[in-house]
């Protein structure tokens, strides 16, 4: 992880409506899927608000999200073998889809499904503990 992140620095994660139980996101919401190529998309809280990244995700990209949850850079470090890095999106065909706040939590160093599950479950516990940062139901 680069030195630009402090332990309390938050990154936001959008959670699909099928991946939340009341106010608590399921672990699968923090587990990169095949489409993600081991990289979990998040947004930098210093560049966008919880509501702002939800709006970008739902209104500009057209995806479904029940709301925005967050984990800290320190929690990502503590869980081990994950890398957090900036990954700004530049869409040459549609500038409205650009996302300078985009970051990824990279799971590539983990070699087994069990290792990835452990990290995803830990991040989900931490995100649940912190609570929903912006709810689509508001």
């Amino acid at each position: 992880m680069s030195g630009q992140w402090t332990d309390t620095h938050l990154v936001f994660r959008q959670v699909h409506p099928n991946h939340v139980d009341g106010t608590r996101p399921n672990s699968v919401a923090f587990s990169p899927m095949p489409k993600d190529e081991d990289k979990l998309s998040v947004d930098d809280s210093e560049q966008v608000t919880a509501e702002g990244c939800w709006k970008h995700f739902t209104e500009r990209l057209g995806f479904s999200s029940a709301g925005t949850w967050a984990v800290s850079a320190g929690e990502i470090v503590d869980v081990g073998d994950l890398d957090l890095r900036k990954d700004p999106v530049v869409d040459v065909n549609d500038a409205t889809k650009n996302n300078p706040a985009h970051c990824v939590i990279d799971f590539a160093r983990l070699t087994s499904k069990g290792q990835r599950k452990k990290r995803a479950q830990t991040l989900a516990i931490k995100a649940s503990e912190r609570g929903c940062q912006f709810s689509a139901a508001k």
Partner: protein
Amino acid sequence: MTKEPFIQPRFVGPRFELHTLPLSAAKDLVAYEELVLELAKHLFREKQTDRVRVPKGFANDFSLHIEKIDSGSAMPSLVAMMASAQLFVSLPSEFAEAKDLVNAVIATEADQPFPASFPKDFYSYFNRIGRSLKDGEQIEWTPASLTNRSALTPTKRIRLARAHRETYEAEADVIGLVEELDAKKKTGILRVPGKEAISFVYDDPFFVDLKDALGNPAIHARVKGVGVFDVNDRLCSVTEIEQLDCLSHYPLVSKIDALTALSNGWLEGRGVAPSATNLDWLSSETATNFPDALEYPSIAPIEDGNVSFEWIQPHARVELEVNFADKQIELYATNLTTDEFVEHTFTHEEWRAAFERVRVLLKS
């Protein structure tokens, strides 16, 4: 017996396109027959102000018979049957007047006044006439009319049924926990999640199933029958049970069943929808094997078409990921208090062992 053509209504809707009439629709015609008979008596009494009762032989075993069912969609031809008698050799005119008055009532639109000659108490017959109709269906009582076919739709039926009452009857389909049973009165209370309790009346054949479900949080009862609804269309009571099903672990199974609504691409354009076959199997296995003592998990579909059961605690997560392709149940559990991570794989035949392992992990 005498026989006279009476009326040929037209049942319109997909169920009637093969020119057949469901038995449930025949119930509507039975109620119509009762209304015509009682209305004819009423009209006779209105004319004969010195008579309190209609004369003997007025109705003479009046009944409506289905003579045939013609096409388009289904048009049952109803004939009026009367026993021959000296006083009334043919159908009294009040029966035709009653038929016309009923047609006029049904033809009344929402912004029009009802015919003044139709007794207020008789609107309750529309609790039964047309009750079998589903959305998109209707009965046209004067199908040949060029101006108004007197079409009875489900919406119009409810408007007529509660024209002079605050409640109306309609088909009820409700799922809840059986909270109380009174075997002597043959009544009970159904607790519908998130709603008020609903009283019901039952017949003997349903007693054993209702008793099994009584006070059992793992068994929900699905009750289909005749319900009484208030002005806000809220079900108040079930006055007749026609079908009863006991559903094991319904809160959990219904969440699995709800995943059938997913289509491919459900997750950011890529998620694979679980197949209906896999979900049917999962519902069945869950209903059969889920332990009564274990709390219900959260259910989440996964991008690859599998399904995750997840028990969520403040300090821990326990997941059973159902892998349909490999016929495996994969357990993953993280406990931040004990700093433990558990991983185990069960076969599709080891549901009970998997749930037992979850139970133990949740206690740790």
